[in-house]
């Protein structure tokens, strides 16, 4: 059987809530990171509040939500977070969320590696039929990474967001089981 949790550059792991909360505090203070990853207003939460969010999420972590930390193989550094949410099992479709908070690891293939792992997990362990994700059109590095991991552009939501006074589109991507090339 395959090692589901390990690729060339990263592995999928799990962290104690305290460790996650500490890292999120650090990553959130990088507003560029937040604005690449999220459409909610950038804001700064306390470590205590973040830990509460994480605890609440792990309670939900049952059968519809699967989340992992991303760790580098070379120095075992905790650099980001990836998750799969299955809104309705009857359709075997899921939504992926991914982020690399440590900016020294941007643009070097770590995120793409983690994406390959979560897609593999979705198809081989959860037996999904397809997976979906969304991103800001201005996040060109993310788009390249997702396409490299096998995703296809499925549409463009016009003027979905507003930042720095500029309207921008969101992009939605999907990958089907039959077009996926196993790692």
């Amino acid at each position, binding site marked *: 059987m395959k090692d589901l949790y390990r690729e060339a550059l990263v592995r999928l792991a799990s962290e104690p809530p305290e460790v996650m909360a500490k890292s999120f505090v650090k990553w959130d203070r990088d507003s560029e990171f937040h604005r690449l990853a999220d459409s909610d207003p950038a804001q700064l939460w306390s470590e205590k509040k973040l830990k509460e969010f994480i605890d609440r999420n792990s309670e939900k972590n049952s059968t519809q939500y699967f989340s992992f930390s991303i760790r580098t193989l070379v120095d075992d550094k905790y650099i980001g977070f990836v998750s799969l949410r299955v809104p309705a099992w*009857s359709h075997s479709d899921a939504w992926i969320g991914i982020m690399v908070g440590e900016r020294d690891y941007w643009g070097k293939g770590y995120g793409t590696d983690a994406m390959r792992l979560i897609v593999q997990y979705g198809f081989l362990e959860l037996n999904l039929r397809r997976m979906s994700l969304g991103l800001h059109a201005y996040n060109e590095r993310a788009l390249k990474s997702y396409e490299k991991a096998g995703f296809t552009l499925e549409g463009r939501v016009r*003027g979905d967001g507003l930042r720095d006074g500029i309207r921008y589109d969101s992009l*939605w991507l999907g990958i089907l089981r039959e077009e996926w090339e196993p790692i």
Partner: protein
Amino acid sequence: MLSIQSQLFEAQDVRFGPIDHEAHPDIESKWTHDAEFMRLMELAPVRPLSPAMVRKQYESVEKKMEEDKNLFYFTVRARDDDRLIGKAVVEWIDWTNGNGLIRLGIGAETDRRKGYGSQALRMLLRYSFSELNLYRVTAVVPAYNEGALRLFQKFGFMEEVRRRKALHRDGTFWDIVSYGLLNSEWQEQQNNGRG
């Protein structure tokens, strides 16, 4: 020019009203026993709901309206006797970015194909764009709901996203289509006397 004399909640044959917690649960419960209707409206697995379950849903809707302030829910009524014929909703409003999802349905078979949906959608769009001041609205439709596809196309929505084979029903894989309409496009229609 401000047009506050022109009623937001009145159309030719239908009007918007609030939820009636006494009268509506029985009616909506009947609609949920019509699987075909529910599968046009809902992407999640459908199930029939008792009046008590519908009453609970109404309560959580109004709680969400009050607390989160990102949901606006209207019942659609027939003008002649004020009876419940459907619902019209703006939900998941993202105020920072000025977008929201719209959803509407006419519940009883006998009330469909009479233009009530068009009248309700016209009111819902005016409400979204000139009361809520949204920049854009989105409608999400399973590709087999041809009535809805035609309705949104008629109102000038543009197909923006087609999530391939995202819905598995009756052994077939269907696309889920997202339609978008911008406030500016809607405004243009008003100026041209359409819509």
